[in-house]
């Protein structure tokens, strides 16, 4: 590419980055935390039962309890425990309301109360806005991130020659540029996959809506119907559910080397009830074995990976690939670290622009302070929201207002505080964020009984505190020396 084209692309990269930086940063930060949503849920409710297996009869007992306690006509989603995921749970879902329980090995239910994990996932997925609007904004953010990645690559003519250059301690702009480019390039396939799948997940409502308008006179059910089983003929006569354990045994027997992981029960208590058992295979990203039973326990449909269209298999994998929930803790850790890298790429992109302006004598101190307010204000806001969630777990709906107030407060204070320059201000907000995360860890110790999962999250919080308190650049080595 000609130098002028490179400069034009770089200009577009800058405009796009600046326009979407704050929201990309927020979505990436909450997304990084959402990877650990299940770990956070176990941490905030340590008394929720955990089990690797259910005793005979426990499954039916748990389902009957959920049926009795949940909203009427709810669809029940039963997660079965395994050694990899030692948790049995039931969600009773209706479009208006849902309840969620964890089951112990005997099938006794404990209501789940995980406001912090729910808050984080909702913030990441739809910014706590109505789903269609929030999803669209997050999807648009994914497109902007994808475009920034494309323009970032195009604007980097020496991509391979510079692939391992990381200079620390010199001019701020060069430091940040090296960090931005190296983290952006080496984790590029991950960044692209996350941005693309996130964009599709966010924009799916819009895509389906427009496709339905174009082809089916606005009937979105016809588009969704291509991917879901048609409902059975209605029959509201009362009928008990069949025993579930024989159905699981049958699913295991018919599918060979698979492990049932979920049961979906629709129209429970009626003669037209439908029970779907989904099973997992080790080498597949998502479960693709499914057996459907009727209310008498007869097999209605037996489906295996070879029976599925490629599109249906892809659809199932998009969410798993995006959140990194498919391979246990090792994959979550990889996703978490690369997610943090994406947060740093976003943050350093704006810092480079600000430093360039300062180098040229056109500093924008207000924007420097505001960006410090975003970068370090968000960990602060999330930590204080977490403390609120620990102290008042029953007030889950209140958390979004706490987060909003702290976000607005940190931006107003950063914007109005003209007394200190941006680097001092950033250091102060960073230290505040570290103290608030430490406070989160301490409040946990005061309000919860600590278990193994609790200890892991506490340790992660303390590592976070240590990193935030650490001085960003070491200066004791001379230029040209390599840190080995």
């Amino acid at each position, binding site marked *: 590419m000609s130098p002028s084209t490179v400069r034009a692309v*770089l200009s577009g990269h*800058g405009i796009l980055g600046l326009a979407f930086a704050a929201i990309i940063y927020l979505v990436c930060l909450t997304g990084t935390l959402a990877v650990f949503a299940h770990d956070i849920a176990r941490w905030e409710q340590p008394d929720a039962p955990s089990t690797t297996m259910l005793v005979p009869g426990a499954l039916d007992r748990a389902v009957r309890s959920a049926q009795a306690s949940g909203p009427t006509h709810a669809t029940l989603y039963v997660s079965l425990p395994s050694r990899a995921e030692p948790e049995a749970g039931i969600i009773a879902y209706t479009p208006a309301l849902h309840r969620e329980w964890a089951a112990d090995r005997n099938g006794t239910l404990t209501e789940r109360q995980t406001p912090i994990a729910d808050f984080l996932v909702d913030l990441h997925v739809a910014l706590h806005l109505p789903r269609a609007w929030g999803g669209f904004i997050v999807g648009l953010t994914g497109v902007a991130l994808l475009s920034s990645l494309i*323009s970032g690559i195009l604007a980097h003519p020496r991509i391979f020659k510079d692939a*391992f250059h990381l*200079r620390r301690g*010199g001019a701020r*702009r060069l430091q940040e540029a090296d960090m931005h480019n190296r983290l952006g390039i080496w984790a590029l396939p991950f960044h692209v996959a996350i941005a693309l799948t996130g964009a599709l997940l966010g924009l799916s409502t819009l895509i389906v809506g427009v496709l339905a308008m174009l082809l089916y006179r606005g009937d979105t059910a016809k588009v969704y119907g291509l991917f879901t089983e048609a409902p059975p003929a209605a029959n509201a006569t009362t009928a008990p559910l069949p025993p579930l354990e024989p159905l699981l045994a049958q699913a295991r027997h018919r599918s060979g080397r698979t492990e049932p992981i979920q049961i979906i029960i629709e129209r429970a208590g009626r003669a037209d009830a439908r029970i779907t058992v989904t099973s997992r295979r080790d080498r597949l990203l998502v479960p693709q074995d499914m057996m459907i039973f009727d209310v008498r326990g007869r097999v209605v449909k037996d489906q295996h990976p070879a029976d599925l269209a*490629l*599109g249906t298999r892809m659809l199932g994998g998009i969410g798993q690939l995006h959140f990194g929930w498919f391979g246990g803790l090792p994959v979550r850790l990889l996703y978490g670290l690369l997610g943090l890298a994406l947060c740093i790429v976003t943050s350093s992109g704006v810092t480079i622009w600000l430093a360039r302006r300062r180098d040229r004598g056109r500093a924008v101190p207000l924007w420097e302070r505001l960006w410090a307010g975003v970068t370090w204000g968000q960990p602060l806001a999330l930590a204080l929201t977490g403390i609120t969630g620990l102290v008042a777990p029953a007030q889950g709906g209140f958390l979004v207002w706490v987060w909003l107030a702290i976000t607005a407060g940190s931006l107003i204070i950063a914007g109005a505080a003209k007394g200190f320059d941006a680097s001092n201000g950033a250091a102060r907000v960073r230290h505040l964020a570290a103290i608030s995360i430490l406070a989160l860890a301490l409040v946990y110790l005061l309000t919860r009984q600590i278990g193994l999962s609790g200890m892991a999250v506490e340790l992660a919080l303390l590592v976070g505190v240590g990193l935030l308190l650490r001085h960003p650049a070491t200066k004791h080595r001379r230029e040209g020396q390599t840190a080995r």
Partner: protein
Amino acid sequence: MTALAALVAVIGGLAGATLLRRAWEDRQRERVGLIVSGWAALAGTVLLDAAWAGWVKGSAVAVAGIGLAALIVVVQGRTVRAARAARSTSLAPEPLEGPSKAWRGWLKALLAGPLGMTAAMGIAFCYATWAPGDPRTRIIVGGLLMPVVWALAMTWTLADQRLLRSLAVLLGTTVAGFTLAAMRGLV
């Protein structure tokens, strides 16, 4: 199984990235052998994980593990220098800067945003309706195409100074894409 695949990915990534770093360290001559070995190590790691843990699952783990391993090699090889005043010029390319009119900014936003989106939808729906294969696969591939094409349109329109050309292409793509999709329907 996945833990082992992640470990293989990190080890293979460390090996491949180390070879590539050595190859590119020497700016005076091309070290083709090292470059080929480095890329081969990375590709071999992806293939090994894919064959071991499943094509999609294994590849996803490998890509994430290699990314992390390469970043470890980058951080390990960092150069630390004494802080000094910034230079006024840099060897790195600088973005185009200059006076810009407000209407151009608004038009660029319109092109990169709504028009880019509709053009991308036009192409995605055109694919979903005209491409061969199962309609579910066409819809999902079309759905994946939409953000990619929109992102490309954003990149292009924000970099291109000829706004009327961008406007014509995006409008034309939108009209053609939607018309063709409506004509065909989901067969």
